[in-house]
């Protein structure tokens, strides 16, 4: 714990300021739902931006502030690598996200990152459970950080992939135009909406995402489950998964907390002894259920 001056000096590369921002340019924009947009981005200096599925950036609109936003595209997609692009899918809820909403193709903003551990924690995706089955369970905008996983799995075609996705209404679902491709690629897609308009054409379920759990074919012991969504939703999901015999070590959750630095120094995202920004945002349920201050 004790550091000499020399150690402090030696440990730091003074040219690397972790608060330094990188300018990015919007090369593509897509309205996903009425209040969600996907931004296709490129670093303004042309260099390649590397990240892991499940990681996030601190996105800056200067004068407004910063917000934590996950990468929503597949980091290994060849075309994107060639062009040096990646995507963020953002729901407008507040200052920064609304400021992003005002931007157009060709506009610039800033990022720093990537931050966090990714799915599942500590491992590149292809190494863990590559041959095992995977179920992803998402609520609302929580599908954004899971999309890289879905794309990755479909490209690798290893093991079964089940997607359980719920949103408030069918119109609030992200990536609806990709569902067909996902299904054709071999994913089993199970959808549910909390409520639907009278007389709407909705061949799927109505109700909470937990209602889909009975339809799952992947069984405990056969693979992993990745969950992302509002905390209450994750809470009921893991409760039911546990009842169905899923071991806590095989279920991974992406937690949301307030973040200001992403570097374990601002203290905002601490829960119990972990920092969600760096030790997470992805944790196994085995870890989460022991944490004081998380109601899951």
């Amino acid at each position, binding site marked *: 714990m004790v550091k000499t001056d020399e150690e402090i000096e030696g440990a730091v590369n003074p040219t690397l300021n972790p608060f330094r921002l990188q300018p990015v340019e919007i090369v593509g924009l897509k309205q996903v739902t009425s209040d969600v947009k996907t931004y296709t981005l490129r670093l303004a200096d042309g260099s390649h931006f590397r990240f892991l599925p499940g990681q996030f950036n601190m996105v800056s609109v200067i*004068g*407004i*502030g910063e917000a934590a936003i996950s990468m929503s595209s597949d980091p290994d997609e060849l075309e994107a690598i060639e062009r040096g692009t990646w995507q963020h899918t953002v729901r407008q809820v*507040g*200052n920064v996200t*609304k*400021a992003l909403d*005002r931007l157009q193709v060709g506009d610039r903003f800033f990022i720093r990152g990537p931050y966090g551990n990714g799915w599942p924690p500590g491992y590149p995706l292809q190494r863990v459970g590559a041959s095992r089955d995977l179920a992803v369970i998402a609520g609302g905008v929580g599908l954004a950080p899971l999309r890289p996983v879905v794309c990755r799995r479909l490209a690798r075609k290893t093991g079964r992939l089940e997607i359980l996705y719920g949103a408030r209404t069918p119109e609030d679902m992200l990536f609806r135009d990709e569902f067909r491709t996902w299904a054709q690629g071999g994913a089993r897609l199970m959808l549910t909406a909390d409520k639907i308009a009278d007389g709407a054409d909705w061949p799927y379920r109505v109700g909470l995402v937990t209602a889909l759990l009975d339809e799952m074919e992947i069984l405990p012991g056969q693979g992993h489950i990745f969950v992302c969504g509002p905390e209450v939703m994750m809470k009921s999901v893991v409760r039911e998964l546990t009842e169905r015999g899923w071991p806590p070590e095989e279920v991974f959750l992406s937690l949301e907390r307030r973040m200001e630095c992403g570097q374990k120094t601002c203290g905002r995202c601490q829960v119990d002894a972990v920092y969600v920004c760096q030790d997470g945002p992805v944790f196994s349920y085995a870890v989460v259920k022991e944490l004081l201050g998380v109601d899951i």
Partner: protein
Amino acid sequence: MTAQADKLKMAVFKFTSCSGCQTPFLNMETEILDLADHVDIACFAMASSATRPGPYDLTFVEGGISCEEDVRRINMVRQESKILVGIGNCAVYGGPQALRNFMSLEDLKRTVYPQPDLIHCFPTCKGIADYVPVDGFVNGCPVDQGHLQDYIVSVLLGKSPEVSSRSVCLECKMKENICLIVAEGVACMGVVTGAGCGALCPSFDRGCYGCFGPSADPNLNSFANLCRELGLTEDEINRKLRCIVNNAKAFREEVERHVPQPVKG
């Protein structure tokens, strides 16, 4: 001043108040000329004879609502304003004159006027949010000039202005003042008062008297107990909570817990 499309069209209106919260606009000294670069002051009766009609992008309202005419005007102002911001104790809570809310209007009229029957006003003075929807507030009695500037800058940039739950205590600590409660046994209201003034009173050796209103989650029950421990009578505690800012919910409710409510019309 001439209107310009890219400028923020701003207005300032006064209701029942002392003008102390408009004065900071005039006290912006050189900044006020900066202000004129981005902001088109379309209506500010105290500063300019040229008043142009709404709609306004940003309207600051000083003063509480205490009569029919106030109600008519605040509705009109609301209609004409995209963003309506109440500034100061009067607009937020009703101001010092809201002390009358806890008294009998008839008694007051008789006390002050030879012909009480000629007076027409409400028995209460209340904040503007009791009458119209409000987009934001700036606290203080008076408001701090810097907060008004921040508000304008935030609106110009397109973000919601900061709302902090800091207490006056934190401003004291940042100034390294010695705590009056701990060191001198003064029943300072800083612990239940929202920050914003820069801990003025404690910096000048007197206990905070709460002019920025209650903090975000004030523990008034504990404050009343603290006062009791420091030897204050119930009446003294009540007068503390019913002074400059008297009609804020948290202060009002704490007093109501202590005393049987006087009957009021």
